[in-house]
C-alpha cells in the first residue's frame, strides 16, 4: 500500500522533475564556476591540480545553496506543511525523505559531474576517486545544513539562509579537501573517518533541529 512516506517521496520527486530549474540550476551553476577557475588561475597543470579539491568542493557548496530553499519553503507557503502537521505521522521520517530527495536531485548529479570535471583541473585519477568518496559523505551534510537554514528562514529569502549555511558547512568542506589532498598518505583514512562520523552524528541532530526550527514558525 502506498503510504504517507512513499507518497511524500513520489510527490517531491515529481515536483523536482516538473521544475527543471530546481535540479538543472545547480548543475549549470557548478559547470560555469568550474570553468571560470582555470580562466582566472591560468592553465598551469600543477597549480590547478593543487587547487582542484578546494575548487570542486567550494563550487559544490555554492551550487547547493541554490536548491536549499526548495526543501521546506514551498510546503510552508502552499499549505502542504499544515497537512503534514495534521497527519500524525513521524515528522522526523518525513523531513528525512524531503532532505534525501533534495540531495538525490541536486547533489547526486553534481557528484558524478565533478568526477569528470576533476580531470579538467588535472586532478590525478586516485585523488578523483577520493573526491567521489568525500562528496558522497559530505554532500548529505551540506543538504542537512541547507535544510536547517531553510527551516529557520521559511518566511525570509535565500540570502539569509545562505549566510547561515556557509559557516556551518566549513568543517565538512575542510575535511573533504584535506582528505583529497592527502590521497597518497595514511592520514587520508583519518579524514574520511572524521567525515563519516560527522555525517553519522549530523543525521539525528540536524533533522531534529530542522523540525524544531519548523515548529518555531507555528507558535
Amino acid at each position, binding site marked *: 500500500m502506498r503510504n504517507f512516506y512513499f507518497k511524500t517521496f513520489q*510527490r517531491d520527486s515529481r*515536483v523536482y522533475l516538473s521544475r527543471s530549474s530546481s535540479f538543472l540550476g545547480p548543475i549549470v551553476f557548478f559547470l560555469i564556476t568550474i570553468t571560470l577557475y582555470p580562466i582566472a588561475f591560468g592553465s598551469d597543470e600543477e597549480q590547478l591540480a593543487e587547487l582542484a579539491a578546494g575548487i570542486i568542493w567550494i563550487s559544490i557548496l555554492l551550487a547547493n545553496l541554490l536548491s536549499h530553499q526548495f526543501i521546506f519553503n514551498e510546503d510552508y507557503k502552499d*499549505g502542504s506543511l499544515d*497537512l503534514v*502537521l*495534521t497527519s*500524525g505521522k513521524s515528522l522526523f521520517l518525513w523531513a528525512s525523505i524531503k532532505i534525501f530527495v533534495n540531495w538525490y536531485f541536486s547533489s547526486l548529479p553534481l557528484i558524478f559531474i565533478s568526477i569528470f570535471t576533476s580531470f579538467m583541473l588535472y586532478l590525478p585519477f586516485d585523488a578523483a576517486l577520493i573526491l567521489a568518496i568525500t562528496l558522497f559523505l559530505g554532500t548529505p551534510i551540506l543538504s542537512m545544513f541547507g535544510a536547517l537554514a531553510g527551516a529557520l528562514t521559511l518566511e525570509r529569502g535565500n540570502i539569509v539562509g545562505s549566510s547561515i549555511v556557509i559557516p556551518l558547512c566549513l568543517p565538512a568542506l575542510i575535511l573533504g579537501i584535506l582528505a583529497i589532498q592527502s590521497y597518497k598518505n595514511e592520514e587520508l583514512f583519518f579524514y574520511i573517518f572524521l567525515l563519516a562520523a560527522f555525517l553519522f552524528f549530523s543525521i539525528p541532530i540536524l533533522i531534529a533541529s530542522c523540525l524544531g526550527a519548523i515548529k518555531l514558525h*507555528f*507558535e
Partner: protein
Amino acid sequence: MIKVEHLFYSFNDLPLLEDLNFEVKSSEIIHLKGVNGSGKSTLLKILSGILNNFQGKILLSTDNVFFLGHNLGLKDSLTVNDNLLLDYRFNAEAESLDEACNIFDLNSLRDSKLFSLSQGQKKKVSLVQFFLSKCDLFLLDEPFANLDKKGIELIENMIIDRQNQGASIIFTSHEEHNISSRELIL
C-alpha cells in the same frame, strides 16, 4: 467528539482567543462565524493540531481529522491528477477519482498543471480531496470561497452527506448557510 475548555491563545502577545468553551458532538455541523481577525482560522488550526502553544484543554475523540486551510496544500507544478493521486489522506482508485472529478467538472483539466488553473478551479481540486477523504472530523476554513452558486450547493450537500455518515464538520464562512446544526460566534 470535541470538548474545548478555557482555551486561550495569544499572537504576538495580543490575546486572540480568550476563555473559549464549547463542545461538538458526533454528526454535528458547526458554522464558525466572526469578523476578520477574530481567530476563526486560528481556532481550526488549534483543533487540527497545527498550533500547539495554546492554554487550556482540548479533548478530541479522534485523530482522523481532515483540514482544509486558506492555503490548499496543492503543488502548482504538478498536474491535477498527480495532486490527487499523491495525496496521502486517501488512496484514490481510478473509478472514485473519475467520479469525483466528474462531479466537480474537472475531468478535462486532469492533465493540466495547477498553475494554469483559476483560483476557483484550484479550490475544486481541494474539494475533490474532501470528497475522497473518509475522516471523523472535517475542519474547513472558508470552503465556499471562490466558488460559484453551483459549487456552493455541491459543497453544502457534501457536508450534509458527511454528517449523515457520522462525521462532525466545523466550517468558517462569512455568508449564511442553512446546513449547520448551530453557529459558534467568535
